């Protein structure tokens, strides 16, 4: 399997995605914003479509549009102009509808959009892997450096505000990191399924962990294991890798729930 270059590229990208998605998703889950990843995923589709229209690298246009969409959700939510789920719905549907219109305008409705929506291990190029590795490493380093203030905000947002922490900036950074994760992950897991990889490993980890720090570390381990298992199973069973990865992650939630219930 590893004799094939496309599999090596897929595993390389998968390692970055498997570690990064739960590390960023942890902060969304704790802020009860698990579905933000889904919303940004739909906006990423508009970014892919824009790339087709402007003939630009799709990862970069998806990245730019995802970050803009994520910051829009946070901006609307933070100003309480509308409820959080309504802000999400607004960006969610605008993203997917905008994507369809842009793809149509680019005359690209006949291209294989499935690879972006649900992921494909055949589509990762060396250039993609370089971008994914570089940006993924930067995002992971940022999460590690800002771990304490990010935790302070998720534990008690008002307390953090009173203490003088830059809460708005930290919240914006969290959704921007989510947007980067989604844009980097769309080749492997797909933009409709990546949100699951940000959430499910964290849920599984929280059932068996003994602290916040152990939750995030276990979540990253479960995410990595899910991606590597998902890609391997997908290769041998000729299944879509994104969906297979998400099913593996969902299975870890069931196992963790069962273990937690048995442990009492």
């Amino acid at each position, binding site marked *: 399997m590893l004799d094939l270059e496309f599999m090596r590229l897929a595993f390389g990208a998968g390692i970055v995605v498997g570690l990064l998605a739960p590390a960023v998703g*942890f902060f969304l*889950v*704790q802020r*009860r914003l698990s579905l933000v990843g889904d919303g940004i995923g739909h906006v990423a589709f508009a970014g892919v479509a824009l790339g087709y229209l402007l003939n630009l690298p799709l990862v970069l246009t998806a990245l730019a549009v995802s970050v803009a969409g994520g910051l829009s959700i946070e901006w609307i939510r933070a100003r309480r102009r509308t409820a959080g789920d309504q802000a999400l719905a607004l960006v969610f549907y605008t993203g997917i509808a905008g994507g369809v219109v842009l793809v149509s305008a680019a005359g690209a409705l006949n291209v294989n959009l499935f690879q972006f929506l649900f992921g494909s291990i055949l589509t990762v190029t060396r250039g993609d892997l370089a971008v994914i590795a570089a940006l993924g490493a930067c995002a992971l380093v940022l999460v590690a*450096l*800002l771990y*304490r*203030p990010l*935790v*302070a905000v*998720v*534990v*008690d947002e*008002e*307390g*953090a*505000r*009173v*203490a*003088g*922490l*830059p809460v708005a900036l930290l919240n914006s950074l969290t959704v921007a990191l989510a947007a980067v994760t989604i844009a980097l992950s769309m080749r492997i897991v797909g933009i409709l399924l990546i949100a699951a990889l940000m959430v499910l490993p*964290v*849920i599984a*980890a*929280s059932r068996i*962990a*003994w*602290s*916040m*720090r*152990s*939750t*995030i570390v276990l979540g990253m381990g479960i995410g990595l294991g899910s991606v590597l298992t998902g890609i391997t199973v997908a290769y041998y069973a000729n299944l879509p890798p994104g969906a297979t990865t998400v099913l593996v992650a969902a299975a870890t939630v069931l196992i963790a729930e069962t273990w937690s219930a048995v442990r009492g």
Partner: protein
Amino acid sequence: MPLALRLDDTSFSYGHGPPVLRDVDFEVDRGEFVAIAGPNGGGKTTLVRLVVRLEEPTSGRVEVFTRKIGYLPQRAQAGIDAPLTVRELVTAGRASRTRLFGPLAGADREAVRQSIDRVDLTPQADRRLATLSGGQQQRAFIAKALAAEPELLVLDEPTTGVDVEAQDAIAALLQRLRDELGMTVLYVSHEFGAVERFVERLVLVRGGIVFDGPPSALPGVWHDPSHTHA
């Protein structure tokens, strides 16, 4: 005695609604232990949210003469799914005193340890918050507020949901902390009986300040019968 805070002719409304607080004049000296009581909806939480600058007054002026504020919000609970230890909770309270980036410095770890020790939770420091009693959880949140080494400690309903004995223990703890650390303490509760014997000043809030003086000057009918030592 220098002032810790001052509200000058302050009013507040949520949106275009009726005023929650009207024409409040309120001063607190440094080192005072003040209980703020009143009925639900009377505006006592709004008053302290103005003090900690989570709300801005509709009119008037709010001045707080320190930036070192520890705040325990109403119904404080870590609304998160991840298991959270006491030490992690208290470390989160230290965030304002540390550099933004990187791991916790040794002095900050020591400050966290001391805060946990001050509320007598050292044996539980690495236990999950969810496994502690209601009174212990509240003490953990007080330790979180202490971790920032505040000059002004604002506690909004810190004894809600805990039994009378735990309320008394928390009140005694706050008195001890005030004496040891010289902090100004604002203690908001609709059940002020637990702190009545400790505070110099009791402020009753009902749309404005309707009583401000020593608890001994409070008309007998307003005393809280649930705390017999008062």
